[in-house]
């Protein structure tokens, strides 16, 4: 099979009950391109965190809104873009915790973006407040061979 770009796209009501569907979708696609289980787990968790933020912070549990999850596969690059049309936020104003202090002070919450940044190779927010917010996360794939899909 010739190498090419592939796009996958899921649009789903914004509710926590759907996190499992989203995780399965992203893991299935990650598995099909040959990621190992540990990396699949990382992608799955990073996407869960991003979607949980959309459900809670962008749409405040309003399940009439939709979440968009797009996966793009290039040769060695797995990109997930999660888009919302909520009120938006300034990522640069978000305080990413120092974990030593965090644990010493027994803080609660505020771990989502920290996790995303440590699980993925690239994490980038593109926010136009009031219009759309997207977070774009990339994981590089170390390929063992030239075939994209194996059937077994």
């Amino acid at each position: 099979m010739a190498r090419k770009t592939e796009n996958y796209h899921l649009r789903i009501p914004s509710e926590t009950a759907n996190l499992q569907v989203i995780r399965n979708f992203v893991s299935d696609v990650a598995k099909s391109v040959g990621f190992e289980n540990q990396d699949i787990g990382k992608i799955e968790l990073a996407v869960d965190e991003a979607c949980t933020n959309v459900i809670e912070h962008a749409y405040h549990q309003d399940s009439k809104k939709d979440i968009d999850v797009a996966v793009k596969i290039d040769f060695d690059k797995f990109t997930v873009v999660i888009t919302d049309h909520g009120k938006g936020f300034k990522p640069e104003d978000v305080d990413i915790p120092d974990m030593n202090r965090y644990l010493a002070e027994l803080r609660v919450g505020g771990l989502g973006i920290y996790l995303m940044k440590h699980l993925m190779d690239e994490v980038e927010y593109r926010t136009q407040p009031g219009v759309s917010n997207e977070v774009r996360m990339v994981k590089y794939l170390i390929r063992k061979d030239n075939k994209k899909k194996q059937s077994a």
Partner: protein
Amino acid sequence: MSGVEVRRKDLQEVTVIYLKGYLDAHTAPEFEKALQELVDQNRVNIVVNLAELNYISSAGLGVFMGFIEDIRKKGGDIKIAEMADKVFRVFDLLGFPVLYEIFKDESEAIGQYR
């Protein structure tokens, strides 16, 4: 969806909570309810058995953080037993093993309270 299953076993001084399935923003409230109940009943020597937990996100971790201060003030603790590798990796990435003791066997974790 499969979600999470929370079971509880009361021993003399210790309570074991079993989590099975997926702990995320959807299911974390069930774990929260179970811990709140224990705090209300003053049963604060707690072991959380994660042998059958397949997944945890920060919403699940937040439940651990949300109760630990209160429970320790009451002289209790949350100890963790039989965590699967996949879940451990998330705990570990955040440095949680500094705050929560993790044991291979449930009996060992229970023994800490004796």
